[in-house]
């Protein structure tokens, strides 16, 4: 009979093996961004890790999905689809840009990033005037909307997390290297460039001759589109990540410290501020006199847009501790909210009360 001694020196490597397994178990999930939605032609287009869904905005029924079955080679769609004439442009973290038919979701063309240095990269998308602007990692490319051919490309100092703001003649490209570049939309030639104190992670809002730029510093900037010079600066408590919402006379935005701001569009003076339950990452949504913001810790706030006083607030899914990182969409009397880690990918709430109208995907019995 052999006597076993469980902690003999020969068995100590087992403990190291256990440590290795624990390390593996503690590795992050593969998600790098969060699901994101766009409203187009009566459909909510939702990019989620496994698929892009077209969902009827009224009923919540699925119209189509791409791909039809889960395909790990395409994983993961996490950038809001860009809509461009007769194409929906989606990007995957696997460094692919795909053009889909808006009615059926059938693939029209795809562009694959030739850079092999990384398996995945942060992507951002926007589209206008027959061109799709697809930023994968540190390279921004203008693709022909018809066939996906590269028209021109622009190398950034770091990654492009925010999609360009587009106009017919010029596009405004935010970069994580703190720089905002104005490029000729047709040729990609640099018109002007300027630096900010913080990284630029979101698309600037473009309205008339001004750009409203949120930065990963504690300020929102209004800059002149012709030369990039400051019109005004509004200092904030936390980082401003989301694209500001610009109306005729006001600018609404939130910061990562959970403060919601309403400032005068012409001079940046503060009209009101309100405190949300958590970090406000996305763009606020406005419908009538109601302003909606969602927070990283799962809360939805409806505020009176003129005064900032609360109308209602709720925690969307306390059971699953939803993270709400995408921008909400307000339309049709509903508020569409895509979630990061919840039971459902998308919720439609009644704007008046916050009551859930429908969610997607529905619960299957």
């Amino acid at each position, binding site marked *: 009979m052999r006597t076993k001694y469980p902690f003999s*020196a020969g068995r100590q*490597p087992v403990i190291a093996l256990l440590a290795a397994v624990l390390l593996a178990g503690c590795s992050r999930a593969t998600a*790098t961004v969060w699901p994101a939605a766009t409203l187009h032609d009566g459909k909510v287009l939702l990019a989620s890790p496994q698929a892009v869904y077209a969902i009827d905005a009224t009923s919540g029924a699925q119209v189509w999905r791409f791909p039809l079955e889960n395909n790990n080679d395409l994983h993961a769609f996490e950038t809001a689809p860009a809509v461009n004439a007769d194409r929906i442009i989606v990007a995957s973290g696997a460094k692919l840009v795909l053009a889909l038919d808006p009615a059926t979701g059938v693939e029209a063309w795809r562009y694959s990033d030739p850079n092999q240095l990384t398996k995945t990269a942060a992507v951002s998308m926007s589209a206008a005037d027959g061109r799709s602007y697809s930023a994968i990692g540190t390279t921004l490319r203008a693709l022909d909307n018809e066939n996906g051919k590269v028209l021109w490309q622009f190398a950034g100092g770091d990654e492009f997390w925010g999609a360009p703001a587009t106009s017919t003649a010029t596009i405004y490209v935010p970069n994580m290297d703190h720089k905002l570049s104005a490029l000729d939309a047709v040729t990609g030639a640099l018109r002007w460039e300027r630096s900010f104190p913080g990284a630029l992670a979101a698309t600037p809002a473009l309205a008339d001759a001004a750009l409203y730029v949120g930065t990963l510093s504690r300020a929102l900037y209004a800059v002149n589109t012709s030369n990039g010079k400051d019109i005004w600066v509004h200092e904030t408590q936390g980082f401003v990540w989301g694209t500001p919402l610009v109306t005729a006379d006001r600018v609404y935005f939130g910061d990562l410290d959970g403060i919601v701001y309403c400032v005068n569009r012409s001079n940046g003076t503060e009209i009101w501020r309100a405190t949300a339950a958590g970090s406000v990452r996305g763009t606020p949504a406005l419908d009538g006199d109601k302003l909606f913001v969602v927070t990283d810790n799962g809360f939805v706030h409806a505020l009176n847009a003129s005064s900032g006083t609360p109308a209602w607030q709720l925690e969307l899914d306390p059971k699953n501790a939803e993270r709400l990182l995408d921008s909400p969409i307000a339309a049709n009397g509903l508020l569409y909210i895509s979630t990061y880690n919840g039971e459902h990918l998308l919720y439609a709430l009644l704007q008046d009360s916050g009551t859930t109208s429908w969610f997607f995907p529905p619960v299957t019995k």
Partner: protein
Amino acid sequence: MWSQLIVYPFTNALLLLYVWLGHSFTAALIVLTVGIRALLTPLTARQQKTQIQMQELQPEIKRIQEKYKGEPEKMQKELLKIGYNPAAMLGGCLPTLIQFPILIGVYQSILNAIPSTPLQMMDLYHGVYPWLFPNFNSLLPVNRYLIWMDLTQPDRIYLPWFPILGIPILPIFVVLTTLVQQKMMTPPSTADANDASAQMQRSMMTTMPLMFGFFALQFASGLSIYFITSNLAGIGQYAFLNRAKFRWGKLSLPGGISLPWPDYTTKPPAKPRPNVVPPPTNPPGGSGNPPAKPKPRKSRGRGDGA
């Protein structure tokens, strides 16, 4: 709670070192890893001491196991007499267990401190101490590049004339350093080749380096730098603390490459400690051979160590 107690402090320490070391995340990571190893030295030294004690006791254990094959109770008594106490061995393993949360925390803080994706950036924002980094915005984005490497991506170097296949330089170093450390920490077994413990040792010698190499292939290369630094620090620490216990030899690899390799074959036999091994006695009625007399230990001269 885990994040607040373990991950965030390490993340902030990494960022602080990043600032102090001229915005080099690699240097920050190396210094933090070495610092943690230094802080854990009292624990790891105890663990290594237990291992050495085990190594020294192996011939005696083997002899007693052979002698009292059919008498487990007697065997236990005799093993206790020579100082072999499984409970004490457990004590030797506890330091390793205590290190786990630290290792996992460091690993997570590496991923946290180099936010390569928006989601990681959100998490970092909540984890940074504002009082420590009032100008945190100026640190972003954290410089995550080292020569050809993006520390947030698995390491591959692509040669211009062979762009199809990436060469994983850092994972290769992870495998080599893990192999050397594993060899160093696993003294030669005196048990026979079929002994379960010896088989496990041999199996771990192969699987551990391959497994850590696999992790290095899959995960961010920052983790590979952590593994390599930690392995090298462990090798250095072990070599220093036990400089009289083994010699460095060379392991010849194909292509004329030689690797520093712990060489136990030339090591003088260790002298059993008088307070651990009792004087050899013939058990009453025992029929086994008396244990071999311990050989005198060579003096611990400078040339005897690593």
